């Protein structure tokens, strides 16, 4: 069933979803996005520039928040605006567990023209990794 504007109530919380991120995720994301910044795949250089370990691409984290939005809204074509501030790094250790990005959301506001504002929260290892994360979608 497609989500419609009429179905949506401001203040409704959207259940959190956990997305895994491994070193392989970052290698695939580097290749697919063209962002080969060494801090996303080379632990030696990441540490040498003062990071605790290899960190995820900010855009990988944003993509997980985007997935959360499009899974809720049903179609990427509903998304009119999507913005985030990267407030902390997602550290990805070289082990079998990797890291987890947990995304949750709340329907912040209903606007005219069937637009809905979602406020998103993303955490990794207990820390907020996105702030001011918002999407505006237009629902049928």
């Amino acid at each position, binding site marked *: 069933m497609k989500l419609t504007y009429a179905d949506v109530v401001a203040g409704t919380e959207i259940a959190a979803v956990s997305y895994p991120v491994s070193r392989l*995720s970052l290698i695939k994301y580097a290749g*697919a*996005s063209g962002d080969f910044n060494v*801090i996303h795949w080379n632990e030696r250089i990441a540490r040498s520039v003062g990071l605790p370990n290899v960190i995820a691409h900010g855009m990988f984290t944003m993509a997980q928040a985007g997935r959360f939005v*499009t899974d809720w809204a049903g179609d990427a074509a509903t998304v009119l605006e999507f913005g985030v501030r990267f407030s902390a790094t997602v550290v990805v250790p070289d082990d079998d567990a990797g890291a987890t990005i947990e995304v949750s959301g709340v329907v912040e506001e209903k606007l005219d023209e069937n637009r809905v504002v979602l406020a998103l929260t993303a955490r990794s290892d207990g820390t907020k990794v996105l702030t001011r994360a918002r999407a505006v979608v237009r629902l049928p």
Partner: protein
Amino acid sequence: MAVNLDYIGRTFPAAEPYEVSRVKIAEFADAIGDPSPLYRDRDAARAAGHRDVIAPPTFGIVISMANSGQALADPGLGLNYAMVVHGEQRFTYARPITAGDVLIATSTISGIRTAGRNVLVSTTTDIQTVSGEHVCTAHSTLAERG
């Protein structure tokens, strides 16, 4: 700061148009772990009312970074890329990027400022089709950690 303020307002037009393929969209969707058929299956995308396979919302970064990346890599700007992390990202969309689009990205360095020990470089990238249809605008702020 080592970053060159003369670059504020400088515009970097795309070297050549970017042709969006179904294969590239599927590769990107795989990389972000999103199994949606709208990103892979033309029939599913058409059934949802799209001309062809559509791209996830953050796909625009592939096109905007390909272009703004050349601006940010300009040695005259003086950015040390290993010290760079992403500060902010925002997209506005007229419609989803769709397989078959031939897109032109134009990036402008909209601001350079300091915040504590960091230097923040903001770019705005306008993405439109070769026939002039506006598709997406991407606003990025990168932070060079001080």
